[in-house]
């Protein structure tokens, strides 16, 4: 019996019929999605922190307005994704607890510091660019609520990348110091950005199952290569360079070759030893704790109003 339910499920997935929350699904599929979607949501929420750092120091009112809008979008993206995860049976509070207790992971990229204004440009171009590369195929992922959330996210994400590239473009045409600042930001963000696609395919044990279930559509290495190819061309318009001496067009492969990734650094940051892991988690927890009185007041107010309404109805 169990077997045949699983066959029906796989058959639907193979035929590109979306799985909806109340449909039967293998427990492992449910758990994989809860983990992936909640991690994704946490990344959006923690992702607000490095950029929020520059809202009060943006160089102009225009840049400040844009950055506020972008950070607000990230909050929205987190909310779409938390809602999608909730349809699988986990509560919002459980997910918050997993994040705040350090049990849940979020994208390691947000454990790097934002040292200059150019970092906001580099984050938009590279970090959001890598995120888009990952997210566009997720618009066709097999679980309906996740796919729908991703369509919304991708529509909004495009402005994030364009505003980042524009920041770098303006800096690259500015003074020598401004151009140097842009290059410095790219130097620091390039490698962490290409690590965003996750471990190499042969060290990513869940990939095969996720591809069979069409949660994932492309492997980590495929997406990483695509991202490198795109960036290697885009950087030419900035008149700056990518900090990789091995980056070279390979005619035979039809792709850019690139240098070795420092996987030791990747795993150290994943394990919690990146430059800002502690600070990010503490800031996030503090924000949650400082908001407790607001949540309590809103609940008390709603309760009081409900009582008043039932009194006047009686």
């Amino acid at each position, binding site marked *: 019996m169990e077997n045949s339910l699983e066959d029906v499920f796989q058959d639907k997935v193979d035929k590109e019929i979306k799985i909806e929350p109340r449909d039967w699904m293998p427990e492992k599929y449910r758990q994989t999605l809860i983990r992936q979607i909640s991690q994704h949501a946490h990344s959006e929420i923690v992702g607000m922190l490095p950029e929020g750092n520059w809202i009060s120091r943006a160089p102009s009112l225009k840049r400040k307005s844009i950055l506020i809008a972008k950070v607000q979008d990230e909050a929205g993206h987190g909310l779409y994704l938390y*809602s999608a995860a909730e349809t699988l049976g986990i509560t919002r509070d459980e997910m918050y607890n997993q994040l705040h207790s350090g049990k849940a992971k979020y994208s390691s990229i947000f454990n790097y510091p934002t040292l200059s204004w150019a970092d906001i440009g580099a984050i938009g171009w590279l970090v959001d660019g890598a995120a888009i590369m990952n997210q566009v195929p997720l618009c066709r992922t097999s679980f309906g609520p996740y796919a729908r959330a991703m369509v919304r996210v991708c529509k909004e994400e495009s402005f994030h990348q364009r505003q980042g590239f524009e920041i770098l473009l303006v800096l690259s045409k500015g003074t020598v110091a401004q151009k140097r600042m842009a290059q410095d930001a790219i130097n620091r963000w390039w490698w962490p950005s290409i690590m965003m696609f996750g471990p190499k395919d042969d060290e990513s044990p869940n990939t095969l199952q996720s591809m069979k279930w069409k949660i994932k559509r492309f492997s980590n290495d495929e997406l990483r290569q695509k991202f490198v190819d795109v960036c290697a061309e885009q950087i030419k318009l900035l008149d700056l360079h990518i900090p990789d001496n091995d980056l070279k067009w390979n005619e035979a492969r039809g792709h850019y070759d690139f240098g070795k990734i420092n996987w030791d650094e990747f795993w150290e940051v994943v394990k919690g030893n990146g430059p800002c892991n502690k600070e990010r988690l503490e800031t996030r927890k503090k924000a949650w704790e400082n908001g*407790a009185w607001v949540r309590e007041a*809103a609940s008390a107010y709603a309760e009081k109003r409900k009582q008043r309404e039932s009194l006047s109805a009686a």
Partner: protein
Amino acid sequence: MMSNENQSWPLWEVFIRSKQGLDHKHAGSLHAADAQMAMENARDVYTRRMEGVSIWVVESKHIHASNPDEAASLYDPANDKAYRHPTFYDLPDEVKHM
């Protein structure tokens, strides 16, 4: 004194009319303490780019959904009634405006 730390805000479903003349369409869900807050949160979460001219919110617990396991029997009555579709009728090509 009620504490919301272990009693979270209820879930609401959000429906948006994207422009005058169109139906409200399900946009997503969110948590809020009451209807007014749900409305304001829906505005911030789902209409940051003028995606709507009208918002409905309803507490999720009030929605009754059909059971996908019963889909076969639920929709069975319509299954064998092809004559409800205009293409069922075989008419000569000469018939115009029909």
